[in-house]
């Protein structure tokens, strides 16, 4: 079984290697310092398993996972307990809180190979949900991949979002990017004082709006600084007025 360790602290990688001595089935093929290296290494080696830290330079562990099309099995290793829920939402095998013991680590590896992994998950998930505090704060940036390059977009640079089949199209000054997420994901994670879902398929950055014109019968249309026109439904208009304080 091929594994990659992604962590920005050399000693944190060292202890995983050390713990793996008693699991000869698992072979570490590469160690990575940050998420960028991680993306590259995963594409190159197609590992079966990654050990992933969350807080890392440039892009964090979750942002890195979002960039990989067919992610391998993931064991998170982190000092933060507030990400446990997100970790399980991203279908992680396990979530190890630093510093973790050899026994706890062995259990995680065991779980990976265990046929009855579902029953194990049922056993540990409530415990992890308990130790995890509420979901971490609002997203301040979105990470996308375009033509093999990774781009980090601060949320205030987003003009508007548009639903496009299974993707969301993120429109910015430099152009638009596709992200494999749903509109409701962005509705939950973006600052609600900055982004308003004006329509089933649109969400707009209110600082970009220059004008709101009536459109057809009961609808409106928002004109942005860039000249783009964003549809506003009847319900969306009510929400928009609420946020703008009209």
């Amino acid at each position, binding site marked *: 079984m091929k594994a990659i360790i992604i962590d920005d602290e050399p*000693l944190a990688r060292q*202890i995983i290697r050390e713990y793996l001595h008693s699991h000869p089935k698992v072979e570490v093929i590469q160690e990575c310092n940050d998420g960028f290296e991680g993306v590259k290494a995963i594409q190159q080696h197609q590992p079966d398993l990654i050990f992933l830290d969350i*807080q890392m*330079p*440039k*892009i964090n562990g979750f942002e890195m996972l979002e960039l990989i099309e067919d992610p391998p099995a993931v064991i998170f290793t982190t*000092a933060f307990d507030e990400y446990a829920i997100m970790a399980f939402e991203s279908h992680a095998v396990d979530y190890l809180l*630093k510093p973790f013991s050899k026994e706890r680590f062995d259990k995680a590896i065991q779980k990976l190979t265990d046929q009855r992994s579902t029953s194990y998950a049922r056993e540990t998930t409530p415990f992890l949900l308990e130790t995890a505090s509420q979901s971490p704060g609002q997203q301040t*940036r979105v990470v996308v991949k375009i033509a093999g390059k990774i781009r980090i977009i601060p949320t205030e640079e987003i003009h508007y979002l548009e639903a496009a089949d299974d993707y969301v199209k993120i429109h910015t000054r430099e152009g638009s990017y596709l992200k494999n997420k749903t509109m409701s994901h962005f509705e939950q994670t973006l600052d609600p004082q900055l982004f308003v879902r004006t329509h089933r398929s649109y969400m707009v950055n209110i600082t970009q709006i220059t004008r709101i014109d009536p459109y057809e019968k009961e609808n409106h249309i928002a004109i942005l600084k860039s000249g783009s026109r964003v549809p506003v439904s009847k319900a969306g208009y009510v929400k928009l007025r609420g946020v703008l304080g009209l």
Partner: protein
Amino acid sequence: VKSPLSESKFRYVFTAWWLVWGTLQAILISNFGFDTRISVVDSLVTNVQLMGACWLVSNILKFYLPRKEKYWYILILSAGLSGAILLITRWILTTFLDDQPSYISFLSNSWPIRFGVSFLLVGCMTILCVLWYTVEEEKENQQRNADVERLTREAELYKLRQQLQPHFLFNSLNSISALVGSQPEQARRMIHQLSDFLRGNLKKEDQKWVALSEELQYLELYLEIEKVRFGHRLSTRTGMQDEIMGMKIPPMLLQPIVENAIKFGLYDTTESITISIDGQVRDSILEIRVRNPFDPETSNPKQGTGFGLNSVKRRLYLLFGRNDLLETEATENIFTTTVKIPQAT
């Protein structure tokens, strides 16, 4: 609460006043053609009672201070006391001087002026006491408010200092866990450094300023731990003239600034970095400058100063009442934080 008569200064004035007043009354009565004995006895009986009434008023009001809408209480109290004094005076003087028919008739005829003067004097004393106690109460309230404010400020300062980053602790413990297997000596050293750091973090009191050299030593502990965690990626440079090392600064003031530098400079970058700390004195203000590189692609330090620095700013405001003691500047990829600490001259 202390009554106005509890102060010796007031007590002298009070006594002198009654001596003058009693003498005047005695002279007045002798001017009406009565002999000295009668005049003195009349004046003594009247004024000792009045004095007693004033003393009584000052003590009653000590325990019961009328609120605004109950000022009629002042009138009733003074009128009642004056009436009682009038009756007692009459009874005493008619009993002891019943051999002086002309004086007895003078006594009966002079009741309105006797009542009027008593009412005026007791009334004045009552109003004086009400004012006195109101002011005293106000003073006490102010003192209490000031105490509350001071306590809140101390609590806030305490809280601002207690911002130990839990992830720093857990990641350091993880590093120690890794070192135990391969380099037990290094692991032991790191446990000691971490313990010293935590102990310092727990013990420091805000009131006691510490020497810059001591604070730098403490920061050194923190930076040494980070160097173990991140291998050779972190290096530090300190540039301080010897003469400023003995200057005093509030404890734990530099810590969050250096933590912030580590957060942007080390946690959020991948290259080898240097964090530099320089100090100088200008116009009896100690200026300490912390510089760290940052990655303009992923973090934007212009956008808010981060929690660490907000708490420093707030603390400087609470300590010095000034908002201009913390400055930050971002140029290309270097972030500079300058903190100014006014030195007592």
